[in-house]
């Protein structure tokens, strides 16, 4: 049985890298005694695909992985894995998916990043307007293609602004990830800085969730499974 899970990674775990997160998950599966499926071959490994992995330095509320089980139910899986995950990590939702469901790696192409900003609501709203009205937003690429300047404007789909109870303003930026245009959180931080939101004024930031975007619609990877 193939399953897809949505999980959260708390702020204290934001420094884990790609491989770290993979090890955390594999070891949790073993501690929980989950009947995972192993791949064939000389060096069998757990059929776990961490479709979305948080970059080092950021935490997240909606990450996803796919896993193949030999036996067991979705409910039992959620119960058992949550007993052994490190503090701060939690599987929040899980469902069975089909064998032919496209992998997360291929399907996920958008994400929402949230920044908690210590400025007044009108000030932030103005800056958001400025950002959205720019025709191009070149940033120094931080990803694989360093030293390259890329225009992230086409990758910014929308920005939502909300005044929080603690008087901070939260903005959530819906952006494109993976191919063809990958907008990274640190590039967004740089952008905010350029529009007058200093790094020190961003008190917290996290990845809200990931999406599969199709024809201008944004689906959760748990709903778009075919």
């Amino acid at each position, binding site marked *: 049985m193939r399953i897809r899970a949505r999980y959260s990674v708390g702020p204290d775990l934001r*420094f884990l890298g790609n491989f*770290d997160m993979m090890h955390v998950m594999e*070891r949790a599966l073993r*501690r929980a005694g989950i009947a995972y499926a192993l791949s064939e071959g000389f*060096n*069998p490994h757990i059929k776990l695909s961490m479709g979305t992995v948080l970059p080092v*330095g950021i935490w997240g509320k909606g990450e996803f992985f796919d896993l193949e089980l030999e036996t067991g139910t979705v409910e039992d899986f959620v119960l058992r894995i949550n007993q052994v995950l*490190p503090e701060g990590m939690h599987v929040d939702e899980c469902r069975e998916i089909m064998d032919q469901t496209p992998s997360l790696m291929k399907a996920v192409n958008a994400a929402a990043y949230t920044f908690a900003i210590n400025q007044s609501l009108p000030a932030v709203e103005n800056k958001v307007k400025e950002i959205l009205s720019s025709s191009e937003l070149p940033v120094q690429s931080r990803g694989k293609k360093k030293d390259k300047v890329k225009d992230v404007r086409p990758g910014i789909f929308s920005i939502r602004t909300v005044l929080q109870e603690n008087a901070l303003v939260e903005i959530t930026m819906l952006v494109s990830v993976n191919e063809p245009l990958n907008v990274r959180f640190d590039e967004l931080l740089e952008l905010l800085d350029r529009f007058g939101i200093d790094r020190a004024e961003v*008190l917290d930031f996290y990845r809200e969730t990931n999406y599969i975007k199709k024809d201008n619609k944004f689906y959760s990877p748990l709903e778009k499974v075919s």
Partner: protein
Amino acid sequence: MKNRLFKDILPRVAKPARYAGGEVNMIKKNWAESGIKMVFAFPDVYEIGMSHIGGKILYGLVNEKSSHLMERAFTPWPDMEELLRQENIPLYSLESFTPINQFDVVGCSMQYEMSITNVLNMLDMGDISVLAKDRQENEPFVVAGGPVVFNPEPFADFFDAFMIGDGEELLLEVLDLLEASKGQARMERLVQLAGIEGVYVPALYDCEYHEDGRLKSMKPKINGVPETVNKRLVKDLDEAYYPDKPILPFMEIVHDRAVLEVMRGCQRGCRFCHAGIVYRPVRERSIAILEKQAGAQLKNTGYDEISLASLSTLDYSGVDRLVKDLVCRYGEKGVGVSLPSLRVDAFSIDLANEVQKVRKTTLTLAPEAGTQRLRDVINKNITEEQLYDAVEAAFKSGWRAVKLYFMFGLPTETLEDLDGILDLLWKVKQIGNKYSRRPVELRASLACFVPKAHTPFQWEPQDSREQLEEKRHHMMARKMKNVKLSFHDSPTSMLEGVLARGDRRLGEVIYKAWQYGCKFDGWSEYFKFDQWMRAFAECGIDTDFYTVRSRDYEELFPWDFINTGVTKEYLQLESERAKKAELTPDCRQEGCLGCGICKNMDINLDIKEGLACESEPGIQ
């Protein structure tokens, strides 16, 4: 503090997970309700420190089995150090983010002589007086344990107390005493500590020297402080604490796997080997206990590999059965077994095949010397034939790369012995090529021999850097295809040699070297040899006195007051046998050889799974 670290500091350093704590199985005890608060301060980076078994044992022991508390700190990498200093953040513990100077005890694990500058640096980063004599009543007690402190003298200036030998019983006694003596004066408490067997408090001793620099006498200043400090040891490993729930790091560490300690000690009697003497006698753990521990550790960590650790795991009496049981029980679940060190014989290769049925990467063997004569001198009990049999068996069963460990600069060594290393490599390569279509890959690691305290070679002169460099050039001159030689750095080995057989006058040099920026001396990219030499010169101390000088049997050594259980007479006997290239057998097979350990420590060889002959501690 934690907030500030997570928000402002950690995003700016490499590998922030080193400094974030919060790992699975971390134990954070209630501060107010705990007795003595101790921080285990490992003088190297997180990845190294977290790989160390001793630390795992003590951490679990104190936190699970006592009312005291233990947290952890590791040496911050220089990028983190710079930030901490710049932002005025003291070195803190990973459990509760408490500055290390808030603890009652700072315990340093000394696994390597060269990590001493990191100790000084950590204390300084933690706002603790670096010199023990400067420490105030409210400062922590700074203590050390580990193999290096069997000669604690070079480090006497920096520690309030040393703990000699196995820590399982000793550490709890120390913490209990510190709790019971709370409120008393620091010096008072140190005198009481010195009364615990295995504890050495350097401030309570006076040293006198001959005019030529040799030690004349070393005496306690106060009545009741022992003249001789006996090492502590655990008599029965089955009874000793071992953690079932070791901390599971988030980031990859050097030894990232579950570990079983199958035995402590090694009775092979290699004459260069420090651990082989100071950890005598062999004490094994029963298979039944080990299998229980394996099950618990795997269940609590989720590791996919389990390693059988000890000084010489293939000598464990139950190794064959244990390996087969573990492979059989966990193999199907994708959990592998690994053997850290292999003996040079065909049996080892068979067992290695057992555990690595599929992936045959690199096989590691340690012949140590290139000729039979020199192997006999160092009592490395393997013959040329055994070695070739082993590599033949290895290549036959599919290994394609072999790594071989050698030493050079050994006592009585000649150019012939060095050529012997090259001849041996050549021959191993020929054997390999018989079984493989592609040329096999050979790597030889050549360590400079450093005579260590408490070994039969403690009287021997160490080769000078010039001699070592000459020997290196000699060996490099002969080129062999697909054979890679790598040599240890001779300046590092020289310094290691000074500290290994040093005395307390070196404290001044170490302090200066640290002030001149020396740290991470075991890491070649940070090793500042010129600053060390500057420190020696300014202190008027000649390194040759400690290294290239040959010592008389009559000389009083700075480490003689530490009783490892093995007598100096026995070491001398072994030294004489070395000169005649006479072999000494393993007492497990041949019966008691009179090294003194069993008699002195009221203990016996503890072989749990049969095969070994009776040892007779009576015949000494």
